[in-house]
């Protein structure tokens, strides 16, 4: 039993994880090897240092439960009595507006796929609005875009999914996730997200210098461009809108099946148009929108 092997097993021995016979063999070696005894003593001291850490009192911020409660409350179904004028489902638009910290920033709300059921009697199911709150993303994108996107994905219960699986599961939607976006942005990772009760998808692309681009897809409301929101003029393509937050632009192109969202710092209109066209099969990159 050589010292290299013994020293590789000392940690497990200290942790009480070795079978009795192996531990006994190591003990026998230690009795005659000072170097290995020193190593054992070093590891014992190292692991003993965790005891004060484990005993350290850690106060849990009260804001954490408050945040949990707020999310539990926001997930509760909202009961709405009555029916729309047509007797069918009505649509409720919720408008969020709050000044963002970064100059020229705007709040954007996009209604997601499903319509809202209306209570017709006390036994009917409750109504629930599906919304995507891009403030979660835009409020922090200027500070750390990767972190802001992670926060947004986490909020909407993102799960990693391969592009192949995404394209198989995204029935009824029309979008593309190419290997590369114009501007040498290479595909990095993709996700399935849950926007209310409807599915959405997201992906991250990155250039060799680390510059990221993010794309998001979800079904539009009512098969047409809708939603009460504030946005800037965007002449990228017919049916597109843009929200600017500092250096970042969140650009949307909506066709009857899908809302395609692109988050980028590029200021090159042609490049943005090309990127948006690369993920939006229905978009005509040559046609430009009228001023909004």
């Amino acid at each position, binding site marked *: 039993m050589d010292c290299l092997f013994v020293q590789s097993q000392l940690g497990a021995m200290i*942790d009480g994880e070795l079978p009795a016979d192996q531990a006994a063999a190591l003990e026998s070696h230690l009795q005659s090897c000072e170097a290995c005894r020193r190593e054992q003593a070093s590891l014992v001291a*190292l692991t003993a240092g965790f005891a004060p850490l*484990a005993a350290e009192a*850690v106060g849990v911020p009260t804001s954490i439960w408050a945040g949990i*409660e707020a999310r539990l409350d926001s997930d509760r179904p909202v009961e709405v009595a009555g029916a729309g004028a047509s007797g069918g489902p009505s649509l409720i638009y919720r408008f969020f507006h709050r000044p963002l910290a970064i100059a020229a920033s705007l709040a954007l709300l996009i209604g997601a796929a499903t319509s809202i059921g209306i209570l017709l009697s006390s036994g009917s199911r409750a109504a629930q609005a599906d919304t995507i709150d891009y403030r979660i993303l835009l409020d922090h994108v200027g500070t750390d875009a990767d972190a802001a996107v*992670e926060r947004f994905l*986490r909020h909407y219960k993102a799960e990693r999914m391969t592009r192949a699986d995404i394209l198989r599961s995204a029935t009824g939607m029309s979008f593309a996730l190419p290997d590369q976006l114009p501007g040498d942005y290479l595909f990095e990772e993709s996700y399935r997200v849950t926007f209310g009760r409807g599915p959405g998808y997201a992906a991250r692309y990155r250039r060799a210098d680390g510059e990221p681009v993010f794309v998001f897809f979800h079904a539009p409301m009512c098969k047409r461009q809708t939603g009460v929101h504030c946005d800037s003029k965007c002449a990228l393509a017919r049916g597109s809108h843009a929200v600017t937050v500092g250096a970042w632009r969140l650009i949307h192109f909506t066709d009857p099946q899908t809302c395609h969202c692109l988050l980028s710092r590029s200021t090159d209109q042609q490049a943005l148009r090309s990127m948006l066209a690369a993920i939006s099969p229905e978009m005509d990159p040559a046609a430009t929108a009228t001023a909004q």
Partner: protein
Amino acid sequence: MQERDLVEGCRRGDRAAQRALYDATSERIYRLLLRMLRHESDAADVMQDAYIRAFERIAQFQEGSSLATWVYRIAVNEALQFIRRRGRRNESSIDSSDTHAERLADPTDDVLRVDLKDALERVPEWERTLLILRYEQGLNYAEMAELLEKPAGTIASGLNRARHMLRDVLEPRSLSAGEETDHPEHPT
């Protein structure tokens, strides 16, 4: 509140039961997340996500197992997913921009004795997670293997590596040229 009552209450969406479960488990989970993620805001975010997910999935909880352990596992998985999504972002400690590799490679450093908490922040995420679970949270190798969905051998070898990384950060370096580091003797 008995665990069975907690489970039933959480399944009904009873706020008092949810709060009771949170109160019973939050300190241990927050401590774990703080150590794993190193930033209070990240720990808070992931902790919220973990409990929301636990409340959403409470119907899947198997009677007979520990509810606290079940929530703990959700929190660990949420933290690991967060770490994986963090991806290529540079990892830096709260006070220093040096990475573990850079500190090890710099031969001009003087004494680098730092306390254990600081040292843990300089260990890479996976190894830090192993050290925290084993020595601060007290899990054995089998529990860690189940929690992290890795073979026990992977846990053991990972901990070996983690211990050496931690020690390299903790122990002082040579102060002048010509001093040799201490190497164990290898008898023939």
